[in-house]
């Protein structure tokens, strides 16, 4: 009975339709937001910010993008990294080469990715499931090829463009905390947008297509239009995520950081985190980005304690085995992802201490 709903009344539809109708949820989220914006940047080490939190946030945004497409609209994609690459290069070119303002450059990156997404979305009317995934795979190769071979985009031999010093509205974004706040702000705003989108008309239309496309059509939802829209919005998010990764994390747009492996990793995030859940996108990104590092750190500790007994080779490989094992473990405990595990925990707390 820790997590209570009883005694909470809602007197207007607007209140009933709020993102967090429960006061307790609102408090929890409020506290998290205050800590994330007001405490972490001031107390966290550069390592925590630059090595862990920034990549987690940026990948969470990428995962939200893929979740919109796959978790909400039900369209499989293996080309997500390609959209991220387009966003990264688009933003870096706009910012570095043409000197456009930072946020506008992010927007440019997102829109460039969205444009590619629209093209990729076209076949989705006729091609479904795995077949669609394979066509999106083609995008990965085409985008990689384009960026490496078209001089104007990739800038020549290295296909790598360095990000100049970041300035936002006159303020240099040069320290760990500032980069983190830029990243956090972007991701939070886009998360709120995504939440609004998925809880209203467009989002419902996507979920309808995901659940039963035939019935969606009969309710007046034009499949092509909404599938395309899902691709466009999803790749916009991926594009901005790619821009964040290159601006705040790698400080360069480098095509080798947006390979098929990354698409699969982001797909892993939403599977582990939970399909069709924004919270799950965060949890999944944290799981995939942080857990291997945590295990690696734990292994360093094992190395210190054991002296030379556990060799570095064994430790490095144990990391993979443990990480793989944990993925298996969590998916067996909760195939629907961490977000569902969280919900089950809440249900459990709602009834606690009674079993049913």
């Amino acid at each position, binding site marked *: 009975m820790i997590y209570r709903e009883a005694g909470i009344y809602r007197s207007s539809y607007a209140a009933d339709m709020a993102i967090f109708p429960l006061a307790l949820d609102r408090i929890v989220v409020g506290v998290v937001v205050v800590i994330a914006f007001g405490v972490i940047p001031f107390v966290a080490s550069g390592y925590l910010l630059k090595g862990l939190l920034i990549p987690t946030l940026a990948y969470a945004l990428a995962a939200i993008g893929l979740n919109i497409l796959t978790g909400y609209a039900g369209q499989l994609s293996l080309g997500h990294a390609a959209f991220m690459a387009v966003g990264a290069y688009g933003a870096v070119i706009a910012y570095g080469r043409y000197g456009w303002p930072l946020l506008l450059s992010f927007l440019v990156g997102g829109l460039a990715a969205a444009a590619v997404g629209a093209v990729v979305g076209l076949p989705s009317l006729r091609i479904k499931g795995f077949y669609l995934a394979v066509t999106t795979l083609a995008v990965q190769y085409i985008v990689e090829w384009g960026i490496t071979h078209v001089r104007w985009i990739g800038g020549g031999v290295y296909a790598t463009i360095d990000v100049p010093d970041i300035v936002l509205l006159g303020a240099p974004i040069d320290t760990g905390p500032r980069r983190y706040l830029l990243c956090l702000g972007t991701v939070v705003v886009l998360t709120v947008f995504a939440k*609004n989108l998925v809880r209203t*008309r*467009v989002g*419902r*239309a996507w979920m309808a297509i995901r*659940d039963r496309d035939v019935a*969606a059509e009969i*309710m007046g939802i034009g*499949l092509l239009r909404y599938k395309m829209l899902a691709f466009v919005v999803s790749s916009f998010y991926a594009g901005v995520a790619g821009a964040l990764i290159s601006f705040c994390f790698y400080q360069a747009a480098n095509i080798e950081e947006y390979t098929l492996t990354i698409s699969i990793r982001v797909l892993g995030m939403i599977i582990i985190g939970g399909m069709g859940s924004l919270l799950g996108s965060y949890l999944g990104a944290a799981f995939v980005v942080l857990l291997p590092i945590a295990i690696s750190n734990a292994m360093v500790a094992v190395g210190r304690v054991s002296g030379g007994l556990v060799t570095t080779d064994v430790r490095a490989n144990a990391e993979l085995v443990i990480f793989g094992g944990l993925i298996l473990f969590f998916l067996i405990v909760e195939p629907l992802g961490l977000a569902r595990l969280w919900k089950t925990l809440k249900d459990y707390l709602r009834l606690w201490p009674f079993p049913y």
Partner: protein
Amino acid sequence: MSAQLSIHGVSKSFGGVQAVSGVDLEVGPDELVSVIGPNGAGKTSLLNMVSGFYHPDRGRIALDGQDITRVAPYRIAALGVARTFQNIALFKGMTVLDNLMLGRHVRMRSGVLASIAYWGLAQREEVRHRRRVEDVIDFLRIQDLRRRVTGSLPYGLQKRVELGRAVALEPKLLLLDEPMGGMNQEEKEDMARFILDVNEEWGTTVVLIEHDMGVVMDISDRVAVLDMGQKIAEGTPDEVRADPRVIKAYLGEKKVGHPARPAAR
């Protein structure tokens, strides 16, 4: 009486099998017309052509005089045609409320940009349509199910929610494919009540496919009978019930409508 839905000489074949051949049917405004016939007689195919899933090989379908023979399903929905499915086609991962709100889709306007900004246009629109949806919720007496995920609901309630989703569209023509299938007596009675209310009080034209002859004969204004893709009879329930061809093809020799009479076995 000008027909609201008129079907003229409609034929459709699938891979050489003639599913529907040369069927005519006129349904007037506010009428409740049932289409009956054996499994595989072409009833659902006919419904699918009206709602735009299949386009007929021959023939013409018109809604309020407007030709909809080759119009896409989602545009037909926007013209005010809603339907339910034989095997329930609810959006199972979504709540009852969201399913019903989806019924309002064609009546709403918010696009991506209005939606992401939410507080403003989109919220006002959501609230406005939520009110209409609440009317449907009250009408179907499913107030306690608003937040339930439809996939977890029992079958009969799923059927009810599916009807609600169709009704939420405020259709002028409602197509129901076996709404009573798999229901017990009590649920059938409720469902019959809802269909009659939608038809009589809300003035919605209804085309109904149903196997339960008790229901069909009690609530229909007219009944059309299909067999092997062709219309073999049409008339008031009493006329149809007495038609020897209908008895042979569909109803069987025994008198229908009183299935409870214990048979001596």
